[in-house]
């Protein structure tokens, strides 16, 4: 297969889920990811878990970043995770959550299969490096 020239591009879905009208953070991270050379798909506001699942499965993203500021993470995130599992997308998608996630809720989300949680004030480079190091390969 010497004629195939492979190029690794990291694809990310940045998702706003549920009734949460604030997407400045999602915009900022979308842009930073793009500038880091990633392909970013932004979901837009007010997405249902089903939509996030559909997009993650179909777009075959390496990374799903869920941004939640509304406090509904304990309800919404497990739904998304279950859907990913149903379509066989859980194992090879890096799931990161950003936003306002209280300390006591974190272990629960990590147990659901979330790979990392980035709270407010996390340096952008830290998130980018984490993605670069941990995004699953697509081979």
């Amino acid at each position, binding site marked *: *297969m010497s*004629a*195939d*020239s*492979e*190029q*690794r*591009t990291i*694809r990310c879905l940045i998702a706003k889920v549920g009734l949460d009208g604030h997407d400045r953070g999602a915009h900022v991270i*979308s*842009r930073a*990811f*793009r*500038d*880091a*050379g*990633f*392909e*970013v*798909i*932004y*979901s*837009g506001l007010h997405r*249902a878990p*089903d*939509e996030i*699942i*559909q*997009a993650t*499965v*179909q*777009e*075959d993203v390496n990374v799903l970043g869920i941004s939640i500021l509304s406090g509904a993470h304990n309800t919404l995130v497990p739904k998304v995770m279950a859907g990913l599992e149903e*379509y*066989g*997308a859980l194992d090879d998608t890096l799931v990161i959550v950003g936003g306002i996630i209280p300390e006591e809720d974190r272990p629960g989300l990590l147990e659901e299969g979330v790979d990392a949680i980035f709270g407010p004030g996390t340096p952008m480079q830290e998130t980018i490096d984490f993605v670069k190091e941990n995004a699953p390969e*697509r*081979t």
Partner: protein
Amino acid sequence: MNRAVESDLVERLLDGEHRALARVITKIESQTPGYRDLVSEIHAHTGNASVVGITGSPGAGKSTLVDKLAKHYRDQGETVGIIGVDPSSPYTGGAVLGDRIRMASNVGDMDVFFRSMSARGQLGGLSTATADAVKALDAFGKDRIIIETVGAGQNEVDVVKTADTVVVLVQPGSGDDVQMLKAGILEIGDVFVVNKADMEGASRTVSELQEMIHLRDDPRANLDTGHHGAGAFGGSGGHGSGGNGHGHHDGGHESGDAGHGHHDGDTDGEAGEDGKDDTPAVWTPEVIQTVATTGEGIDTLVEALDEHYAYLAESGKLTVKARQRASEEIRQLLRSDVNQLLEAELERRGGIEAFVDAVVEKQTDPYAVAEDVLEPIRECFED
């Protein structure tokens, strides 16, 4: 690399597993080793979907229209695959693929498979990747496939040309007409849509478009009808399009290598059987008005698309187009493969820099270098 894994993936795709389809497209897009075997295996299962390409300037309402179209097809019980192509940054390779946002009517409906792709800066590679992704959707069993792209340049034009029917979307307002002519997009449209038809100036844009379509004098007559079937059909149609019919005959030899020989027979047969008078031999693009946000005009658009597809089928152009696509695909693959061989040859000879030094110092010239590098290859082919 592993042939067994690839076969398994194809099998799962043919079984209708969404994740397998998604992964196949990923491999196609990133040209993962082994993707060629995948496409080879898929190829035999294609040819059942109708493919529509939609292009237009940013903000014209493509995504919204595509969403409504998909909804319409879903209501008819058909499955839909969509490929949204967005430009990527030439500096970082990064991209924000935004078309998905507008797919509001098909929320959570897995039978609408939407996939975003970006140009990834490969010369000519985008149209190959898109065509291969279309094959994957086709093999998966999608009835309708829609390719959506920003009509910005040659790359995008090449992309929509892989479709059976090309829709060009225009929004009302000044300057569009000139822009369209500049981009050469007028020639590729089979159906024109003036979206946002509730805006001021819509009817003016419609009439401007109509005027330009009549002026365009079918520049493709010599390009895509390199067979006598259409000409013969035109004769039997007798629709006052004699001038154009003539053009077909004259142009008969132009693209001979793409479509000679065996469908002459096909098409003549078809024309003889139907002998319908109401099918024009030459397609004159329609101009349709829509308001994508409310869904107004979508029915008319769907009708026009079906009409065009029927026209392609009846006139035999569907086969001609398929043959053209195949020849273009072969050529494109050969070009990129030969390119890679040459790159490897350059490397083998110590890289291009040494040649550059020699050229800059006037010890030799670019032509001589090219000749020198090509020599062994040329010898191979001459044997």
